[in-house]
């Protein structure tokens, strides 16, 4: 059997609470190929972010483990860059300095000053932020901050790019813009990506595979849907595409029929 690029094996996690351990995730098995774009979708509170944090190394799985290129993941590292939901830029640094902090950390001794500067500017260009790269986060819009967050992650040349609801806090139009930018970048770089989302359209549009999670506690993988739409994808063309709508319906059915939120069932 060929080894997967990124492999989650029987990952379970328990959090201690005053009323005893709370099992958030139960037996997650997932294999991801190099260059694959995988979305995790599920209702809020189902543990999507926990999965991502385990891959990032910010949480430790209670059972099972994660292998990246055959190496065990047990601590955070720059080869698994994270794009955080609320951008998490350092507010006292400019956009450029925020990316620079990451670049200096990753390419210390590998790139000289000039090369670093070019590399930062190159990544700013990728996310269309060259015009405002010397502004501080409080001087730019939410969408621009998230662009910088993505530039910071990309600039680290990660083996896996982890995105935690990267567009969740943005308005619909800005979100669409950023999704297009992300697809464009993905066409060039072909990164391995795990993205968490609760937006069905976003998942179908961007992913190669959609991993649908059951509700917690003890959440696990419910279904996996392969999205076989050819790239580059265009949101307008896809809107009338029967295949696209079929995928979309599949995800919706999973979320709203099979995995209705418990409180909705009760109501």
């Amino acid at each position: 059997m060929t080894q997967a690029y990124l492999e989650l094996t029987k990952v379970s996690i328990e959090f201690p609470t005053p009323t005893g351990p709370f099992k958030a995730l139960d037996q997650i098995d997932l294999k991801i190929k190099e260059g694959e774009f995988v979305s995790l979708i599920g209702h809020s509170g189902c543990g999507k972010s926990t999965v991502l944090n385990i891959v990032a190394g910010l949480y430790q799985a209670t059972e099972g483990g994660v292998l990246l290129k055959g190496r065990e993941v047990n601590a955070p590292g720059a080869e698994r860059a994270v794009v955080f939901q609320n951008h998490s830029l350092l507010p006292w640094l400019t956009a450029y300095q925020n990316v620079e902090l990451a670049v200096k950390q990753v390419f210390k001794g590998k790139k000289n000053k000039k090369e670093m500067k070019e590399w930062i500017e190159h990544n700013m260009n990728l996310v269309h932020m060259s015009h405002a790269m010397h502004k501080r986060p409080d001087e730019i819009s939410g969408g621009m901050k998230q662009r910088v967050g993505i530039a910071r992650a990309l600039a680290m040349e990660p083996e896996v790019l982890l995105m935690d609801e990267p567009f969740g806090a943005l308005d619909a139009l800005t979100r669409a813009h950023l999704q297009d930018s992300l697809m464009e970048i993905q066409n060039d770089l072909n990164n391995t990506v795990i993205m968490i989302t609760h937006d069905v359209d976003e998942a179908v549009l961007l992913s190669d595979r959609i991993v649908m999670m059951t509700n917690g506690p003890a959440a696990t993988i419910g279904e996996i849907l392969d999205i076989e739409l050819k790239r580059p994808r265009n949101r307008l063309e896809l809107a009338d595409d029967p295949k696209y709508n079929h995928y979309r319906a599949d995800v919706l059915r999973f979320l709203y029929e099979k995995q209705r939120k418990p409180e909705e069932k009760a109501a």
Partner: protein
Amino acid sequence: MNDAVLEMKKIVPEKTIPEKIIPESQMSYADKIKNNKSSINFGIYFKNIGIPFIGILVFLMFWSALAPKVNTSLGAIPGPSGVYQQFQTLVDEHVEEREKEEKFYQRQEERNAKKLEKNPDAEIKVRAYTGKATFFDQIWTSLYTVLTGFILASLIAIPVGIISGLNKTIYAAINPIIQIFKPVSPLAWLPIVTMVVSAVYVSDDPMFQKSFINSMITVMLCCLWPTLINTAVGVASISQDLKNVSKVLQLSVITHVVKIVLPASIPMMFTGLRLSLGIAWMVLIAAEMLAQNPGLGKFVWDEFQNGSSNSLGRIMVAVVVIGLIGFMLDRMMLALQKYASWDKTADIR
């Protein structure tokens, strides 16, 4: 606009119409806004300068009205004008003392020159002037004592605060000590400090006076705590998101502290520093009074013991000056905070 106004505009060029006589109903919209704006401006000035000024005026009125009614063994309490007179006397005394000092050194120089003339190998003694310290000398002594104590305390409190903010175990270990020593009065520290300093700091040619060391260490011991606690809380409350960024980037401890911890905790740190400096200043005056160490506290105590008819006035000058210096020190820290803070738009008060 009605026709009459248009007519008027045609006949008289606009600028020759004196502004005041345009009735409001005939004012153009832009003028109204301008007018409104200037009244807002005036409002702001009045609020920022006028009202505090009135407050002080009312206070002075009460003071001068009520003070003569309080009779003490040293006479009635002086009003504002009496206190101001004493201030002038203190200035005069200072000037006089400086002149004396100058003359003393002049005489000494002349004497030595004569001696050398008679005998080039003569041993020359240069003595320092030992006149009595004036009010302004005492201010200076107090100021550098408080600043030395405060800076020394900050140099200890900030690093310890950062470390205990970063590490819960260390915080748990240090916390009880902080909580117990924090409420201790400077007057309780003073005897211990005095004994320890006179036992430990033994030197034939001391670089600092013992009284200075005593006051300074007492100040330091009392103003460590607010900075330490606030820095620790500031560091501990850095958002998890920023800590995660640091973890993902695998920042070294030093980079983490410099790039993330320090900028994030500057507001809390300065809150602590300002509290500390305020405490330092109060503690110093008390310590100087109790220990008879040179400084403003000693000045107040000496005047109290002196018991002349001017004493109350001179003490009140000292009270006002102590207050003004405390205020000035706080403004200084505020300016420093504004300089150090990354967020220049933040409302710092």
